[in-house]
Every structure is written in structure tokens, then in C-alpha cells.
């Protein structure tokens, strides 16, 4: 479970103070499939960075599985990211010198107590439909295939939550549908929470819960995208 309490993130831009997040409070239960929508500058990505312990909020706290992350040091945050959080990025962010399987196994390298292993990584590769691409390098794969590798990578350490930053933003609509289906299947089969930041309302429509941000605040928290955008 993730609890976000009065999360704020302010930063200076010239002489102005930008309120990227302005007192966001949310609770996301284990196994939810959540979309975060909003216009550019609404605070979606900042919220994802804070949830992912990648940036330090100005105030407020993020509690993951009962652990308050606000007082953790950088290396403790890194370890928590490795153990509790998986990431999927718009541009896939695969290492070009590693094969698909090696990319999937990358988080295992940094975990003090890896929850997964090579066999698990191979199973995930099969689950995303890439059992015949395990030893291919990223530049030998399509964008959709690379993103499927990234999905498998996000799950290799058996995290509580996977954070997606526009995971379908760089692929065509057909591939986007395939990726959404894979993420949904992973969410259900492995009971992993998915929080996906997206502009793609079609993708948001496939989730269970849609949170809409505007000017750093939650203005809608609904079960359908239609309800969320109607606010």
C-alpha cells in the first residue's frame, strides 16, 4: 500500500516559485491499476518522481508498505527502489550493451537480497512474449519489444509497485494496446500495483482508477476516465 500525505514540491524558476505539487494526499491499495492524468505541468511526473523516491519532496511524506520514506538517506532510498519499486519509462531506457535478458536482470545486480533470479527473469521474458528474443540487443528489437523488456525488468525484483512514465508514449496505438494488456495481466497475475502517468486517455480508460491533477493538486479521483475528465 502507498500513502501520500500532504505532498508538496516547490522549486524556483527564475524569481518565481513553481508549485509542482501542492498538498497531494492519496492512498493506493496493493494491486490497484491506477492512471494519473493531467495536462503538461500539472504535476504528474513530479508526483511519479516523488513516489519513486527519485526526488525529495519539499514537504509531506510517501509511505510504502508501512515504511515512511521521508527520512531515508539517498542510499537507503536506492535500496528501497531496488526492492519495492519497478520503473517503466517512455524511452524504454535499456542499456545498449546488454541483451534483453541481461537488461531484465539488471536490477538484480544492485539488490542486496534479490527477490528474483535468472529463471524468474526468463519466465518474465516469456510472459511478455519475448522468449525468442532473450539474447537480442536492444537495437535489434522494435520499440514495442523494447518496452516489453522494460516491463519485464520492472518486475524482476518482485516489487510492490511499478511506476510507468508515459509507457506507451513512444509506440503506435496497436502496440500501445498490446503493452496495456501486458501491464494489466502482470498487475492481475502478480498482484503488483501499477501507477501509470499518461496523456493517453485510451490507456487511462483501461485502468481501475484515474487520478487527475491540475496545478499540482488532485482535482479528480474516479473509477473511470470519463468521470475524471468531466471534473
Amino acid at each position: 500500500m502507498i500513502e501520500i500525505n500532504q505532498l508538496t514540491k516547490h522549486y524556483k524558476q527564475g524569481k518565481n516559485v513553481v508549485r509542482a505539487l501542492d498538498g497531494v494526499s492519496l492512498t493506493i491499495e496493493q494491486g490497484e491499476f491506477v492512471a494519473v492524468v493531467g495536462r503538461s505541468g500539472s504535476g504528474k511526473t513530479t508526483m511519479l518522481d516523488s513516489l519513486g523516491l527519485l526526488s525529495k519532496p519539499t514537504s509531506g511524506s510517501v509511505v510504502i508498505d508501512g515504511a515512511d520514506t521521508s527520512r531515508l538517506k539517498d542510499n537507503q532510498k536506492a535500496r528501497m527502489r531496488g526492492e519495492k519499486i519497478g520503473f517503466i519509462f517512455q524511452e524504454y531506457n535499456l542499456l545498449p550493451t546488454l541483451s534483453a535478458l541481461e537488461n531484465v536482470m539488471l536490477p538484480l545486480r544492485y539488490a542486496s537480497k534479490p527477490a528474483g533470479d535468472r529463471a524468474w527473469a526468463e519466465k518474465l521474458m516469456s510472459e511478455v512474449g519475448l522468449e525468442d528474443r532473450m539474447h537480442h540487443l536492444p537495437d535489434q528489437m522494435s520499440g514495442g519489444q523494447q518496452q516489453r523488456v522494460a516491463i519485464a525488468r520492472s518486475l524482476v525484483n518482485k516489487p510492490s509497485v511499478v511506476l510507468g512514465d508515459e509507457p506507451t508514449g513512444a509506440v503506435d496505438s496497436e502496440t500501445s494496446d498490446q503493452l496495456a494488456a501486458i501491464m494489466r495481466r502482470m498487475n492481475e497475475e502478480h498482484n503488483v500495483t501499477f501507477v501509470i502517468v499518461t496523456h493517453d486517455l485510451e490507456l487511462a480508460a483501461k485502468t481501475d482508477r484515474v487520478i487527475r491533477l491540475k496545478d499540482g493538486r488532485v482535482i479528480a479521483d474516479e473509477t473511470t476516465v470519463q468521470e475524471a475528465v468531466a471534473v
Partner: protein
Amino acid sequence: MKEIVRNLIRRKLRSFLTISGIVIGIVALTTMGALANNFNALLDGGAKYYASYVPVSDASANGVTSGGIIPLSKADEIAAVPGVARVFPTITVEAKPGTLQVVSLGLPDRIVSYDRAEDAYSALKTSFAAGGDVTQSGQIVLGSNFAAEFSKKVGDSITLPVKPSDATTDFVQHTYTVVGILNPTLTAPDTAAYVDLADAQQLFKEQLPVALQATFDASQYAAGFDVYGTPGTNLDQLADRINADVSGVKAQRPTKIVKALVAGGALFTEITTAAALLALIIGGLAVINTMLMAVSERVREIGLKKAVGATTRAVMREFIVESSLIGLIGGLIGFGIGFAVTSLLNASMPASQGAIFLVTPGLGALCIGFALFLGTAAGIVPAYRASRMDPVAALRAN
């Protein structure tokens, strides 16, 4: 490690140029170090040898043991000085008179009077690769380089001294039977040939001006004495006592000779240090530049690694291992090339000169270890920069 190797292979030209920088430095370090090793072995042997006895010559001589004529009767006077254990008359003559050695890293070929008993006193021990001692006139024992130069083995004959091209008609040569060949010592005995005292005295006489030869009874003279002290005797003080008690002779303090040899070795140590500095500057800057570029190119990779759990230390370690690997590869290749070059140069040297480069396992460890250190040290700043990168900015960098 696989990822690091692939990163190096991915940027072939850059990796090649960076490694080449280290290779150049390590080749310089290997060759200079091998030269210094060889020279220092010669000096160490000399220092060991000269520290173990007091050389005594004629009072007018400037050299260590040669340059004068000293009556054998002086041996008894010297032997009477307190602290003297044994006195050996010594004569050294050139084996190839008239040869001009402009540049040399070793002693010239020479013929030396020989008393096997001296080996028991000398700190520099010799041993036989083949054959054995000179037991009578007409026999000769050859040092390792001397034997190689003249292609002689035990049982062969050798005619010495070598007749110079401009020799006069009265130039005298003798034919000796080779009875022993010494093992290499890396110092003075390697370029020497040993005959008994009577044969050495005859050669000594024949090198005097013709006008003197007729009246000169060589059997009563030597060029100098090697004086050994009793156990526990301070040889510098013994030299002073000989100078005070025996007229007409000059005893050299062993420490004075050894100091002069050590000072000669210091020059080569400085040259080696300069080569190391060259390697440090060329190789170090190349590695720093390469690693800084690698960090700049891999900003998103660093961000990704941090996102999936890499700690500051883990990121730093990966970059340092990569730069260390560059150093290690450069060190191995550089030492390999240096070893090959010195081996080829050694093989091309005239046998009389012997090897001028001495590559030892210690030198190998020094060169490769130095390159590894260089790579590691040069990687610290880029690795630190990578490890401190903000993951959010890194993940979204273009």
C-alpha cells in the same frame, strides 16, 4: 564485467586511443626500467664486490687496482697490518687492446689474474657452468659473456689478447686452453677471462714499452692487491691503517668506491622515474578524458541504474572498474611490447656487450601494477561525478 568490456568494444577507436596512451607510457617504463635493472645489477654486483675488500695499488695510481706497478714484496708488509686476513696480488690487462668503447653499459673484455682461493673471501661468488678451475699455466676460465662472444666451450683453445688491426710486429699473443666457463653474474666476471698469476704477469710485461720489457722481472710485480680483513674488521679503518703503516701504496676505502657506484645507479633510477611520470601524464590524461566522455554519454544509463537500485557506491565502482580495466589492458599490452622490444634489442647486441636490458618479474609487476593504479586513479573523478548525478535529471537527459 561483461557490460564493461562491451562498453569498451562499443567505442573501439576511443578505447584504442586511450589504451594506446597507456601503452606508450608503459613501454617507456618497461624499457627504461629494464635498462636501469641491468645497470643496477651490474652496480649492485660491483658494490657487493667492492664492499668486501680493500683495493691497494701503487701510491701514484689513480684507479682502483690498476694503473701502477707494485712489488709483490709489499704483500708481506700489508699482511702484517692488524686486521688483514689475506692478500691477493692482482693483474688486469685488456683482452682487446686498442678497442675504443665510446658508450658502454658494462666493463670491457679483460684478462684477470686468478686465484680460486679468493672466492672464499669475496662477497661476489662465482660458479662454473662448465669445467673447473685453472690449475696451471696455459689454462683459462671464461666469464659467460666472454665465452659467448668468442663461441668457446670447455676444451677449446683461445688466443689472447686479440690482435688490433694496427698492431706492431712485436705484438705477442698466447694460446690458452679453456678449462672452465662461469655462470652469468650480471656483473664484472661476465666479461672477464681468468688466468693464473704467472700468465697474467707475462701479459702485464708484454704490455710495457719494449725498452722496459728486457729488464723487467714480471714475476716480482703485480698491478695491485685485493686485501681481505679478518671477520669483524672495519674495512675503511683497515684501509687507513694500510696507508699509515705501508709506504708506497694507496689503499682505497671501500665505502668511497661503493658510494660512487650508488651515485651512478641513481641516474638510472631518475630516468626510470621520468618514464613513469611520462606514463602518468600521457596515460592518466587519456583515461580521465575518456571516462569523462563516457560519463557524459551514459547519463541516462546512470539515471536508469540509480532508478533500479544502484547506490552511489555501486555506480562509482562500475566506472572505476572500467577505468581500471583500461589501465590493466594498457599495462599488459605495454609491458608485452616493452618485453618484446627489449628482447629483440638484447638479441641484436654484440656478444661482448651482453644483454643491456634486464626484464624481471618484479619489473613486470611494477609496470602492470602502475598501469592499473593509473587507470584506477584516473577514473575516480569521472566516477565520482557519475555517482553524484541527480537521477531525475539523468533519466530525462537528452
